[in-house]
């Protein structure tokens, strides 16, 4: 039996799971867009990983990253739970050791990571403004009746430049419609949109920072040739798209799990594949015991409360229990 390190990236628009072996080769990869319930996706993902690899591998470490990392980390019994910036940078540095700049554009957020000598020295992150992320393109692709997968290649067919005012999604949309009416072709408009997205990204995150090569472009949107071309035009240099550019966060956290386990010299705290049969439910309620009015999040496994979090005072987290509260939300 060989060792396997699992990396899980819980983002808001995609969930990615990878399995790396001892020599960091990828044995399993799952990229799942628009997941409804993260817990269900992770359960299914792990079940198929188990089916594929159980005869050859045993789980030596589990890492979780992404905006939903705390909760899933708890459910899985992760060995390491870390933010996505560190995870992304770790994966990129492994593949492109002399990287200085990482552009990461995902479905609903985007990042800029600056690296020097394999160390992160600066970063910026946009989680608020949709205009610099993939959802901007999704939205416009739908309006134009173009499949998002074809979007990038279409952009490259443009013969004329057209500038779309893309400060924000709403403006971009009305401007796009009027440019269509002026008679610009679909490829030209799409190219204009790609450039608008990149402009937004640079305005939001780069803000005049001095950037150095080598440049790496990753994240779900990196598959889009139009965006890649627009970035290269903006920086006037070449960008590298790493292998498995869409699951870099998961790879990074798997690598960090491996490192952690080497240092720790303890068995993994992974709860095992039996969790894929458990029934998890997440709900939250507002605690009214004091003026803080915390939103307390409760995780139940097969109807029994196993964890609580979100309380400022720790009275719930330290003693998770089944209580009768009216649920504010259920997921």
């Amino acid at each position, binding site marked *: 039996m060989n060792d396997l390190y699992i990396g899980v990236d819980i983002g808001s628009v995609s969930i990615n799971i990878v399995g790396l072996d001892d020599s960091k080769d990828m044995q399993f990869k799952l990229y799942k867009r628009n997941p409804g319930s993260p817990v269900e996706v992770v359960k299914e993902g792990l079940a198929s990983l188990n089916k594929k690899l159980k005869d050859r591998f045993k789980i030596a470490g589990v890492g979780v990253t992404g905006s939903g990392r705390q909760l899933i980390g708890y459910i899985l019994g992760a060995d390491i739970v*870390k933010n996505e*910036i*560190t995870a992304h940078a770790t994966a990129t540095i492994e593949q492109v050791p002399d990287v200085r700049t990482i552009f990461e554009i995902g479905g609903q957020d985007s990042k800029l990571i600056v690296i020097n000598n394999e*160390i*992160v020295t600066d970063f910026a*992150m946009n*989680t*608020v403004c949709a205009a610099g992320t993939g959802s901007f393109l999704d939205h416009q692709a739908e309006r134009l009746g173009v499949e998002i997968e074809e979007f990038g290649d279409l952009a490259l067919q443009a013969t004329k430049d057209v500038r779309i005012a893309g400060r924000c999604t709403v403006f971009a949309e009305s401007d796009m419609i009027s440019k269509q009416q002026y008679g610009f072709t679909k490829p030209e408009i799409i190219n204009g949109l790609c450039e608008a997205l990149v402009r937004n990204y640079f305005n939001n995150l780069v*803000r005049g920072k001095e950037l150095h090569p080598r440049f790496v472009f990753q994240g779900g949107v990196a598959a889009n040739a139009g965006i890649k071309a627009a970035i290269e035009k903006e920086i006037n240099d070449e960008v590298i798209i790493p292998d498995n550019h869409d699951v870099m966060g998961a790879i990074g956290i798997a690598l960090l799990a491996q490192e952690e386990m080497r240092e720790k010299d303890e068995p993994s705290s992974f709860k095992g594949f039996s969790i894929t049969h458990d029934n998890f439910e997440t709900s939250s309620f507002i605690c009214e015991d004091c003026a*803080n009015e915390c939103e307390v999040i409760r995780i139940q496994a097969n109807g029994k409360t196993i964890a609580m979090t979100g309380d400022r005072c720790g009275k719930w987290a330290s003693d998770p229990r089944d209580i009768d509260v009216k649920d504010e939300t259920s997921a």
Partner: protein
Amino acid sequence: MKVSFPYMDNPVLYYKLLDLLGHDIIIPPRPTQHTINLGVKYAPEFACFPLKVLMGTYLEVEKMGADTIVTSGGHGPCRAGYYGKLHQKILDNAGLDVDIIVFDAPKDWRPFLQNLKKIKLDNSWFRVMSVIRTAYTLAHSMDRIEKLIHKNRAHTLEPREVSDAWEEIQQKYMGIENRQDIAAVEKWARERLAGLEYNFPTPDQRIKIGIIGEIYVVMEGSTNNDIEEMLNELGCEVERSHYISEYIDSHLVPWKWKEYQHILDKADNYLEIMIGGHAKRSIGHIVDYKERGFDGVIHLKPFGCLPELVSQSLLDRVSEDLDIPILSLSIDEQMAKANMLTRVEAFLDLIKQKKEEEIA
């Protein structure tokens, strides 16, 4: 007359000042999401975030029965100078009968004394002076303890216990009558904190973070997801660029101003003029932190704040010149804790790596 005041960090100082004068007081609750929603609803959209939160607090205390609000004015040409007037106008327009009394920096003593008259009740001027002196001592005493907490909470096994002790200490301060009481509470507080369990690393292993930015979002934990606590829990010592006693000394006590001048002077290379708010002080503090061996700085900029937008635009240069990492966070009603934690964690990873590199 039922008096209330803004909530910033804790209510003790304002409360004691008014209580010792014999006022009937409505203690404002710590701002919650509800407070913020209320403020956002009533305040103009373009207003800066602190103005909105304070608006929410004023509306809440009005509901609780307050008819008078005592507050301190802003300083310099930023919008804080109009806070009182704007809040008053919004309350008037909403048909609420509340009087806001603004104490400004005493450039001109006349309005200051007039305001003082409004809240002096039938106390003698001698008594008023003595109460002010007690409040002044209280501010300094509490800040000494709070600074100790911002350091030591980083090194306890149970940060929560330190926070609980701090609550207890504040309650004790609520009961003081004079300067002897303050000294006694401070002594008790130090013992209470010393009695907890710590695990102090060697000085070169400690990570020290300075928090700079606009005073309200730096001091009021409910607006910044309790960032001090968050950093302490992640094992970092914290120091803020604002403590209320220092604000009083540097803005309200003319003969103390010069003690804080050196912080402003340190910003001279970057900002020559005072642009209002706390921009110059913010930059000065970064220089000061660097000189004192801090590992990083977190800058809090309220949404809609012009002065801090100016300091933010200088941060890249300052960070590079001084070789100190700076993380700038914009604070508004949508700043979710998870997003903030992600940035703070990544920032600390960066700092730790930098530190390792420097030691190696």
